[in-house]
């Protein structure tokens, strides 16, 4: 065997340096500083946590962001309304289509147009499918962060079916860019409804598997029960939304409580909550939500009305002067856009209210006093996408 050449050696050293994901730096005096990141082991993006330790316990922890800040709020000010959807479906890249919907709805509210019923149904179906794709990955991913490797393979396997169906409609697996002001770009392809129903059946099997493999697992329960408890009132004060707040016993879902015109009120489904507020509850609620979403999709596929998929809108879209805030219940929580228009081709200002930003802002409060391995559990169960924090 030949000795490695110099470029090979350099490449190896560079690889080792890149792999050194946890740098430990010992300070004299008051405890130890533990630096985790910026690489996230499950590649949800690049988040760095600097924790000050006293033995095994965290004294204070500070998330450091900005590694993925792409300045979308500034960019929207120079993009026309139809061009903005390209930007926003990169915010939470796992729940891609769901990001476009609230922005389009806000623009529609300002223009006082409404998409036809068929478009609203297809929007809701794709919205719920991006929820399934997003949460399915979480269900496997949280287990892998706690040391169980198998579930994540199941998750990738079954998420693929959902992504294929999304791709069949929109042409994009991760960045569909399919929603338009006044409707949708295209109708459903032939045979898609039956295929999707079969996929929803597979996803329900996947949820059952996760229930057996992960939720019923004694090690998983020991590592998540009673870890990272968020009282409901504190969660609300920090702006926690979605499954994170429902796991603290707050029965609140924007899909049910603030209908924005999509088809959720046309079907029969329930909002899942859990009283415990710990990491286990957050996993459990998301698991139930994934399963519930497959039922929502099934019912919508059965009742999808015929008709046009596009309302009459001008070809060059000028949005009348005004302000609108529209938020929807995205996979990660409440996602909303505060759109200020001055009657131009481009928005005057768009404030993007993303779920993960608020969800993770509770971390410094929540991580105080926990043990080092529980940092991983808590962050995994809060479930964030870095693109959704940094925007």
């Amino acid at each position, binding site marked *: 065997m030949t000795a490695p050449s110099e470029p090979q050696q350099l490449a190896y050293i560079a690889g080792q340096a890149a792999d050194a994901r946890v740098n430990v730096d010992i300070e004299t005096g008051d405890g130890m500083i533990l630096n985790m990141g910026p690489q996230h082991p499950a590649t949800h993006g690049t988040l760095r946590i600097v924790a000050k330790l006293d033995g095994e316990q965290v004294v204070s922890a500070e998330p450091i962001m900005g590694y993925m800040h792409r300045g979308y709020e500034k960019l929207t*000010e120079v993009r026309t309304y139809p061009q903005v959807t390209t930007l926003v479906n990169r915010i939470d890249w796992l729940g891609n289509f769901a990001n476009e919907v609230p922005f389009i709805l806000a623009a529609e509210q300002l223009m006082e147009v409404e998409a036809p019923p068929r478009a609203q149904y297809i929007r809701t179906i794709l919205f719920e499918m991006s929820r399934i794709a997003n949460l399915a990955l979480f269900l496997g991913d949280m287990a892998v962060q706690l040391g169980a490797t198998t579930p994540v393979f199941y998750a990738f396997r079954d998420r693929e079916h959902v992504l294929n169906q999304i791709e069949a409609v929109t042409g994009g697996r991760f960045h569909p860019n399919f929603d338009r002001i006044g409707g949708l770009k295209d109708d459903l392809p032939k045979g898609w409804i039956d295929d999707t129903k079969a996929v929803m059946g597979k996803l329900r099997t996947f949820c059952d598997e996760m229930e057996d493999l992960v939720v019923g697992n004694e090690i998983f329960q020991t590592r998540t029960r009673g870890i990272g408890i968020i009282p409901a009132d504190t969660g609300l004060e920090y702006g926690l939304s979605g499954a994170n707040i429902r796991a603290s016993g707050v029965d609140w879902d924007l899909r049910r409580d603030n209908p924005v015109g999509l088809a959720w009120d046309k079907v029969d489904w329930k909002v899942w909550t859990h009283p415990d507020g710990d990491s286990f509850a957050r996993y459990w609620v998301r698991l139930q939500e994934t399963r519930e979403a497959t039922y929502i999709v099934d019912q919508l596929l059965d009742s999808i009305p015929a008709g*046009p998929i596009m309302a009459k809108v001008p070809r060059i879209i000028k949005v009348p002067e005004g302000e609108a805030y529209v938020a929807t219940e995205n996979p990660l929580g409440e996602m909303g856009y505060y759109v200020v228009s001055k009657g131009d081709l481009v928005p005057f200002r768009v404030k993007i209210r993303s779920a993960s930003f608020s969800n993770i802002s509770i971390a410094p409060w929540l991580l105080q006093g926990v043990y080092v391995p529980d940092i991983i559990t808590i962050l995994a169960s809060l479930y964030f996408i870095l693109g959704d924090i940094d925007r």
Partner: protein
Amino acid sequence: MIRLSSADTTVEEAEAAGAPLVDTVRDAVAAAFVDALDDAVIESFVKPGCDVIIRVRTDAWLQAADAARNGLGYRFFDFLSAIDWMPSPFGRDMDAEQDTDSADAGSAAAEPIVAGYGGGETRFQVLARVYSLYEHVGVTLKADVPDDDPSIESWISVYGGVNWHERETHEMFGIDFEGHPGLRHLYLPGDFEGHPLRKDFPLVARRVKPWPGIVDVEGMPGADDDEGADA
């Protein structure tokens, strides 16, 4: 068509009758805020079926938060941010020709500052949104930020979650929040100069290279080209 957020609103009935839109739930919410804050409210604006906007005096910003959370039960803190109402001094001068033809071209710097719903007298305005889980109504609170000294009270004693939102607003708009424990940069490097979301902060990419424009306007399915062309 404006959609409802509560079954109690009478928007649909009013619309069917051709009467002006009335939203009793949001009207009541606006009235409750005016009651609780008394003369601190400068203007309240209700967009039926959509939103409530309450503009308060600058010195009553913290009082408004306290009244919303502890008095009126708006427990959920949604977001806090700011708006720079100054028209962009760069206007649309770097846009492609086909864009500026259809847009209002020309020097934007001469335009006066015009605020949106709820009014406003200053260049910067902070806005924050709180939500009630009992009524399922969100309220947007606004306050002017003085031009000569862009600072306002911090909400951190009322809503703990405002911490990062205020840090972000501080670095993006240069607004100080009195009483915030550490207004460090959240996204930008510590030595970054300027406030990117201010309108007079240039978007360098646009300065360097003109935007290709909306040459890729795609035909909308179901829309006739001739009918849809005129905006």
